[in-house]
């Protein structure tokens, strides 16, 4: 850990990586960049753990019979996959890794507003994670990540309270991250960096933080109520005692639907940065892209009961929520159109981050459009709780969030480590991810429409062909995800040394050294230019690293 990024044959310029090598200097750091790396390591561990469970699911579904594992085991496996991926990977991944690293750098600040709270966030996250791992190793949970009542409160005998505590802590980690970002973006922008000059990644993280702050407390209290209900049988969600299980679903989705925007918005921000840099252009319709992030965050709170169209809510409520659900479609569409329009008359390079950006737009388009189908009640009644929904949210969560994250990680890797990744391998893995992803999840749309319910351990034989395709795709996808893991680690030692701005990118983070010094800038920058002033920055095609 401590030796990361010390260039072998360079004058030992002090940067955040070589400024202190002890374990303590990492575990008690208040440097946002070091905390970002702590998150990077921990979310990567959880990602591969969740991915391991995903592979188990796909292997079980290779055959219609439940032959690989017991039904109970399978139920725990998909629950662990869902909870890990949602609460310990997707929600923190982009804000806590890239956001943590970049928000202060992009706005010309020395750190986040509350560095110690930032460290506390990581500790809350990692404590939650450890509790969750303990819960997993000592029996796990079998409720699905949605832990619907009354199954979770009265019928399962697995460790709901412990898992709830883990998620509760991870939730507060998320709240504090959001709080830190909002305060930092409001109070600590460099002189001259007005709101309409902010990078779109900052706008996206700002919108995400709003959702974190406003939504997460509701899931926190819901978890408390579920735990109390489970321990003392009060009846808050138990129909036998007068409670209403749908109230749980309302409270749960009030957070968990907007949580989807916690995941996707920061990735959208990443894509805006990538497209601008590799098309050498200011993002088309900057203001609309910026405001659409905030619009998605706010509208996201109005749509939650579209997860409950068949759950037993009233006819009228279903119609209201269906109507409101389409409101999120407009700002999402605006983003996609603007990204595409940005390419027009650009000077487009096919560097790996750009390939991920292309992938993101394509997959998010499919994910978004199938989302519109799910918002259409007549269709939702048929396909909800089937593999259609599974495919839809994987297109958004994996095709969207993860594509954005990987694109961003490649893009900012030289800034974070001072080393370039091997371009050819990276292109290969981007291709594998794209192909593997589509092969895994596209068949699931069809599976869902022909009627295969989700969370099924065994299924009628006629669904097998598509399931085999999906499992085959998953194995390609797995290789696509393992490759970056290997070559990123490889690049720490053998990668080409990156200069301060290897992409000739706009943005304050490129105006400091790679890796940046502990306090980011030797002098507080003064911003006199608009965002994405690519007309003023000549691109340096020759210097763009081509390695591997």
């Amino acid at each position, binding site marked *: 850990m401590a030796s990361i990024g010390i260039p072998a044959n360079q004058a030992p310029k002090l940067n955040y990586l070589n400024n202190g090598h002890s374990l303590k200097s990492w575990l008690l750091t208040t440097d946002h960049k070091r905390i970002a790396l702590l998150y990077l390591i921990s979310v990567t561990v959880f990602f591969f753990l969740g991915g391991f469970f995903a592979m188990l699911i796909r292997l079980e579904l290779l055959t219609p019979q439940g032959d690989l594992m017991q039904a109970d085991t399978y139920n725990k496996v998909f629950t662990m996959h869902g909870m890990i991926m949602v609460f310990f990977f997707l929600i923190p991944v982009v804000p806590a890794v890239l956001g943590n690293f970049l928000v202060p750098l992009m706005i010309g600040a020395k750190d986040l507003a509350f560095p110690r709270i930032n460290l506390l966030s990581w500790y809350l996250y990692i404590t939650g994670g450890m509790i969750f791992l303990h819960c997993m190793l000592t029996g796990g949970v079998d409720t699905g990540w949605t832990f619907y009542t009354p199954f979770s409160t009265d019928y399962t005998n697995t460790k709901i309270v412990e898992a709830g505590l883990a998620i509760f802590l991870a939730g507060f980690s998320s709240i504090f991250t959001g709080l830190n970002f909002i305060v930092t973006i*409001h109070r600590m922008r460099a002189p001259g960096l007005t709101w309409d000059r902010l990078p779109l990644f900052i706008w996206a993280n700002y919108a995400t933080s709003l959702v974190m702050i*406003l939504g997460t407390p*509701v899931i926190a209290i819901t978890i408390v109520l579920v735990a109390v209900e489970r321990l003392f049988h009060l009846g808050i969600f138990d129909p036998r005692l007068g409670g209403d299980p*749908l*109230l749980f679903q*309302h409270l749960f989705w*009030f957070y968990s639907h907007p949580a989807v925007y916690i995941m996707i918005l920061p990735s959208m921000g990443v894509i805006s940065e990538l497209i601008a840099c590799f098309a050498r252009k200011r993002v088309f319709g900057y203001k609309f892209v910026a405001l659409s992030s905030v619009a998605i965050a706010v509208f996201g*709170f*109005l749509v*939650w*009961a579209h997860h409950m169209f068949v759950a037993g*809510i*009233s*006819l*009228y*409520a279903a119609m*209201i*929520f269906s109507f409101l659900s389409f409101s999120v479609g407009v700002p999402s569409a605006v983003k996609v159109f603007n990204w595409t329009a940005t390419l027009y008359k650009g000077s487009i390079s096919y560097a790996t981050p750009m390939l991920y950006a292309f992938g993101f737009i394509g997959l998010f388009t499919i994910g978004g459009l199938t989302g519109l189908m799910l918002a259409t009640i007549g269709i939702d009644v048929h396909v909800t709780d089937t593999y259609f929904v599974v495919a839809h949210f994987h297109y958004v969560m994996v095709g969207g969030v993860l594509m954005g994250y990987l694109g961003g990680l490649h893009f900012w890797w030289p800034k974070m480590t001072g080393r370039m990744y091997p371009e050819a391998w990276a292109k290969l893995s981007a291709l594998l991810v794209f192909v593997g992803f589509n092969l895994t999840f596209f068949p699931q749309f069809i599976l869902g429409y022909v009627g295969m319910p989700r969370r099924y351990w065994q299924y009628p034989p006629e669904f097998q062909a598509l399931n085999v395709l999906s499992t085959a795709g998953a194995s390609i996808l797995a290789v696509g995800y393992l490759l970056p893991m290997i070559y990123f680690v490889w690049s720490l030692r053998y990668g080409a040394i990156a200069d301060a701005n290897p992409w000739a990118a706009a943005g304050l983070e490129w105006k400091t050294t790679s890796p940046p010094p502990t306090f980011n800038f030797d002098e507080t920058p003064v911003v006199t230019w608009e965002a994405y002033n690519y007309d003023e920055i000549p691109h340096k095609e020759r210097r763009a690293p081509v390695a591997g």
Partner: protein
Amino acid sequence: MSNEHGTSVKTYLIIGATLLVLTVATTLIAFVNLGPFNPVVALTIATIKALLVILFFMHVKGASEKLTGVVVASGFFFLAILLTLSLSDYLTRSWW
């Protein structure tokens, strides 16, 4: 929030006294049968009290920038979304 809240001890005491009077009032009014207006009155008084605390004790009135007010308002706004949209389900169930 600026260093100068422009609020004096006298204001604080007056607001405190008003809050106490409103507490007594809401308690007494609860014993008067106003039909469906009992909860309305009780919650109106509670809201007035909350506003007094927010504006004067928490110094949102006279704050140097609007942001604080926007933050508070957005908190209550999203709470209202939670309550009203949940009720849109319950109130339209024929048998709830």
